[in-house]
């Protein structure tokens, strides 16, 4: 089995590795540049001090943050955005053809009528693409965690692109994409439709879970604080409140918090999005920055479970293909 798998996938493996090396050739130097720039601006120290003093870092590190953002943040995101699609690409090109190409070309009738059962054949293949997906996604997930470390200082790691690219979630997404591709192949029996189903299914599930399930993995926390009104001169139109250093209830603010909702309330506790005339305090619910890793683990678990389910369904469907 291993000889056959190696012979069938060696070219694809080579192309994938060349792609990864090319990406590394771009990402490693640019990552080093970002780390250097952040250190030169004294950003990590400044933010550590701000957090220690329970101060909003945007107040005391403002100039450094601004200069850093100008130089790196916006440009970096476009480049890094590529990686959001990496799990999808692996699902499309490693997962979808796995069964679909065999059935499309009729070679499943060749390979399943040798001495090896189709279940063993499928398990060996799935194990192989599973390991490939695992290694690639672990390398790039942890690599991007390093790459984005300075950027994480300037904002929350819970942001949609930020959360989805670093840490361990890429492993879950990639395994899920591969499993979806394999399952689609056992269902549609042709490569292109299987790829189309993988594409649509992956995006739908990812968006649904990110938008609906992720904010609810753990009960959000609430806090209230007295804000001071911004200067009359800064007529941005947006009602905003500069928070006092310590909240009247709840945990102190951190740059890394995931803000879910905010209301400006009057003395009776009634509030809305608009800034009321009789403003009394600000209420907000959020996921604290410290929950980044628990959330990563939960989201990874959800996608790994979905992947295992799809692999099991694919093995079941395989029995009915002739």
């Amino acid at each position: 089995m291993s000889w056959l798998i190696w012979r069938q996938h060696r070219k694809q493996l080579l192309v994938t590795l060349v792609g990864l090396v090319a990406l590394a050739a771009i990402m490693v130097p640019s990552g080093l540049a970002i780390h250097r720039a952040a250190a030169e601006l004294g950003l990590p120290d400044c933010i550590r001090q701000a957090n220690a003093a329970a101060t909003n870092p945007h107040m005391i590190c403002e100039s450094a943050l601004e200069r850093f953002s100008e130089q790196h943040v916006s440009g970096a995101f476009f480049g890094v955005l590529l990686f959001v699609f990496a799990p999808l690409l692996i699902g499309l090109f490693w997962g979808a053809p796995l069964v679909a190409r065999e059935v499309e070309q009729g070679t499943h009738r060749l390979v399943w009528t040798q001495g090896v059962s189709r279940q063993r054949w499928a398990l060996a293949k799935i194990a192989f693409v599973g390991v490939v997906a695992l290694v690639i996604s672990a390398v790039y997930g942890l690599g991007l965690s390093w790459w984005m470390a300075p950027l994480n200082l300037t904002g929350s790691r819970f942001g949609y692109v930020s959360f989805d690219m670093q840490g361990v979630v890429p492993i879950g997404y990639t395994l899920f994409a591969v499993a979806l591709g394999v399952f689609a192949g056992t269902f549609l029996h042709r490569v292109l439709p299987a790829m189309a189903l993988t594409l649509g299914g992956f995006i739908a599930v990812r968006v649904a879970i990110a938008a609906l399930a992720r904010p609810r993995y753990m009960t959000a926390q609430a806090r209230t604080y007295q804000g001071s009104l911004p200067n009359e001169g800064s007529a941005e139109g947006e009602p905003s409140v500069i928070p006092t250093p310590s909240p009247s209830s709840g945990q102190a603010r951190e740059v890394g918090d995931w803000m879910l909702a905010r209301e400006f309330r009057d003395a009776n506790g009634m509030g809305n999005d608009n800034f009321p005339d009789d403003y009394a305090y600000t209420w907000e619910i959020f996921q604290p920055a410290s929950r980044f890793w628990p959330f990563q683990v939960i989201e990874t678990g959800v996608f790994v479970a979905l992947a295992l389910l799809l692999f099991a369904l694919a093995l079941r469907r395989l029995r009915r293909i002739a």
Partner: protein
Amino acid sequence: MDMALETEGLGKRYGQRWALRDCSLRLPAGRVAALVGPNGAGKTTLLHLAVGLLPPDAGEVRVFGASPYANTSILPDIGFVAQETPLYRDFTAAELVTMGGRLNRRWDAALARERLASLGIPPNKPVGKLSGGQRAQVALALCVAKRPRLLLLDEPVASLDPLARREFLQTLMVSVADTGTTVLFSSHIVADLERACDYLVVLHSARVALTGDVEDLVATHRQLVGPRHDGGPIRGVGQVVRARHTDRQTTLLVRMDGDLGDPLWTMHHVGLEDIVLAYMDDTSNDVTTAQSAWGVSA
């Protein structure tokens, strides 16, 4: 007698449609059998059931006494070449031989190499670049290298030109004659059968229309020509397979069960091809169905 393949009331259904139904046949070991029938008669379904690619929906199928579906213990005894002889097209013939060695416990690589060499097939060229005839030979060589006791071939010669077809059947015959391998190969090309096989299974509309030893079939079938006949019994005739009438004359293809007792008929010998065609011919049924489907009166 040892049975290579036995089916009993075997049936397979795709949705509402039965692809194979009430199929009961016994193929004795050591025979070279042809499985013939028009397209869609159920030949491929029968072969897929026999090699264990499909589970039956009714009845049972046994290969050397064992049920083949999801049964890896019987796989080494069955060699199978699927329709259109699928191979990994980017593999070379030499790599396919290596693959067979990796996937089978019993594997005669030397036999495969010898066969391919004697047929002049290049070892290091991707098989996708070989001709259809050469690809079929590669598929057959892979199959034979398993040293199977039953060889199942699904339309192995369908895509070949007449010369390649004859060559393929010849090499097949030679290789099985030495080893006593049982062969069942399907074909919708009826010519060449008489030379290639000694056993016959005719499928029609998902059912077995005829099965038996070729010599027996040829010995018992006759063509009778006589005056126009109304369909009454004729002494010595067991079954009228096909009847053709003109205004004054009737031509029958019949299966005899004794001596012909009616001097009005003249009797002719018929070849296997004519017998097969007679069993496959049911134009009268098709025409009636088609007439009602088209809304045309008879």
